[in-house]
């Protein structure tokens, strides 16, 4: 050791604890290691070659189980020790670039590393704390989570939020909380599941449409998350603190961790306990590979329910290499889908490779992300309420604008059909009814750049009213802009009668204050 220190020009005396044999906390799998025989020197001392060969027998004890499992750690070339050091350095920078911000915002917070680690070192908890610290010091890049937080605001506005007892009742033993993403992807399944619950459960099933606060939690916005949980608490209290039934793993996990004194069940457990609807289509032995949601990786009862439902419908269940407690993230977790879209797509592709068979998911975002990357995937509700056709597994995924519209329509229809009420919107969007036409290529670009139809409508509506725009006399195109909160949106369009054909759109955050 002294020679090694001397050769590396390190101090011969500093920090010289734990030398010789001692009990290490490091746990290593040596099963696959080849143990080579000891090299003994032929003469009294080692020759150079003998010394090298003897030194090469060292297996360089290191545990990289988490790195081998996690695509984020692999991509960043960091193990937890180096990651924590990087975070520490990033936090201390006063002058200069916070170079690790993008890395920190690319962790999926899925907890796979912690599950696999023999010492339970969970980067998700460290990243959550780091993001909270960045927000508190005003060092969190705005662009990372801005869209998701605005979406959360929309979901908690009167466009979607709804808290009701079952029609004709004034108390609730249960409340159905479908979650904002299931409502955006599968509004019709939400209605069907709610009807099912009111038929199967006694004592009234209320309905609560809203956001569980996950975006704020992932973004490190602790204050916003706490006030969101407080609001949910008080709304649940107004319903008489019923048992919450969630159809979203992220909501389930958020409530389980933060709403301590109220019982929470998943819709999948209810289906498993109370039986499936009578008119379900059967799977006829089709093999489906179960993709467990990372937010409920510890919920064994949910894992079992999903498999029981699939089996009772006549499907064969395959377990991919990473399954149940050690499932992988689909690419949405930790808001990476918004903060680092390019990497999020790699995560989805990585998970797709884990099975040749079609996936069975029970989180709307997991299913949607797989399908967007060309993987055939079913949501568990596709098996229960779908029409039984194979096309359902590559059914088109709604755009970000359509997701908002679906939530809004779901609330409107439920209010009308179940409670006979008309929807009352307090914060109505201006120019909402403007007719715009966007081709699929541009729609794809808008998805990547997080531009909504309503942003485009607001730009055009304002430009048409004020004439603040530019005009190209050659092709008659108009180029208009408008600052909306903290972004300037630009839209190139042509007007045909009362319709606006959208040619292009882009945005920037920098505020051009003028000449």
């Amino acid at each position, binding site marked *: 050791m002294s020679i090694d220190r001397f050769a590396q020009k390190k101090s011969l005396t500093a920090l010289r604890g734990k030398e010789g044999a001692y009990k290490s906390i490091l746990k290593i799998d040596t099963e696959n290691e080849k143990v080579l025989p000891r090299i003994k020197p032929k003469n009294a001392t080692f020759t150079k070659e003998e010394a090298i060969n003897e030194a090469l027998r060292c297996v360089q004890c290191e545990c990289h189980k988490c790195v081998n499992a996690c695509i984020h750690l692999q991509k960043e070339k960091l193990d937890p020790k180096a990651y924590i050091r990087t975070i520490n350095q990033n936090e201390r920078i006063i002058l*200069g*670039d*916070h*170079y690790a*911000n*993008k890395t920190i915002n690319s962790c999926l917070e899925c907890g796979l590393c912690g599950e696999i680690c023999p010492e339970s070192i969970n980067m998700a908890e460290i990243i959550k704390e780091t993001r909270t610290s960045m927000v508190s010091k005003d060092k969190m*890049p*705005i*662009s990372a989570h801005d869209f998701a937080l605005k979406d959360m605001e929309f979901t908690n506005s009167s466009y979607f939020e709804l808290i009701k007892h079952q029609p004709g009742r004034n108390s609730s033993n249960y409340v159905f909380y479908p979650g904002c993403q299931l409502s955006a992807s599968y509004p019709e399944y939400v209605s069907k599941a709610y009807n099912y619950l009111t038929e199967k459960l006694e004592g009234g099933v209320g309905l609560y449409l809203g956001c569980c606060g996950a975006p704020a939690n992932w973004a490190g916005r602790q204050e916003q998350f706490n006030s969101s949980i407080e609001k949910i608490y008080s709304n649940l209290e107004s319903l008489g603190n019923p048992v919450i039934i969630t159809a979203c793993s992220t909501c389930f996990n958020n409530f389980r961790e933060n709403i301590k004194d109220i019982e929470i069940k998943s819709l999948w457990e209810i289906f498993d306990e109370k039986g499936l609807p009578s008119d379900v289509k059967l799977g006829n032995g089709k093999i489906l590979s179960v993709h467990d949601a990372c937010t409920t990786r510890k919920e064994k009862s949910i894992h079992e329910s999903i498999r029981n439902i699939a089996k009772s419908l006549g499907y064969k269940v395959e377990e991919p290499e990473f399954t149940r407690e050690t499932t992988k993230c689909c690419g949405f977790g930790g808001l990476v889908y918004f903060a680092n879209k390019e990497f999020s797509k790699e995560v989805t592709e990585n998970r797709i490779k884990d099975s040749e068979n079609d996936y069975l998911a029970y989180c709307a975002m997991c299913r949607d992300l797989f399908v967007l990357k060309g993987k055939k995937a079913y949501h568990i509700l596709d098996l229960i309420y779908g029409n039984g056709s194979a096309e359902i597994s590559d059914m088109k995924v709604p755009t970000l604008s359509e997701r908002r519209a679906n939530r809004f329509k779901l609330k409107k229809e439920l209010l009308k059909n179940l409670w006979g009420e008309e929807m009352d919107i307090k914060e109505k969007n201006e120019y909402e009814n403007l007719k715009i036409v966007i081709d699929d290529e541009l729609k794809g670009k808008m998805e990547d750049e997080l531009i909504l139809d309503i942003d485009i409508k607001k730009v055009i509506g304002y*430009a048409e009213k004020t*004439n*603040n*725009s*530019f*005009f*190209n*006399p*050659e092709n008659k195109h*108009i*180029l208009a*802009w408008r600052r909306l909160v903290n972004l*300037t949106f*630009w839209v190139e369009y042509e007007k045909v009668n009362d319709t606006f054909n959208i040619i*292009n759109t*882009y*945005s*920037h*955050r*920098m*505020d*051009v*204050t*003028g*000449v």
Partner: protein
Amino acid sequence: MTMKQDDNVKKSKWLCSKCGGPLEEGPVKAEYLGGNFEIELLECPVCKNVLITEELAAGQMLEVEKSLEDK
């Protein structure tokens, strides 16, 4: 930090919708997260409306925004 409008735009055919006049290049003030900049951009000399191209918004401007966010 300086940013500049790309050359393609100088030849662009955009006119101001308000006054119908051509655009001219001139210094324009911009701000992000407390950083102030002066950029040479196309603007209407009469109505003072400023044109930002996609090339600038998705190129240099985005780079500056990202680097300010990481300060």
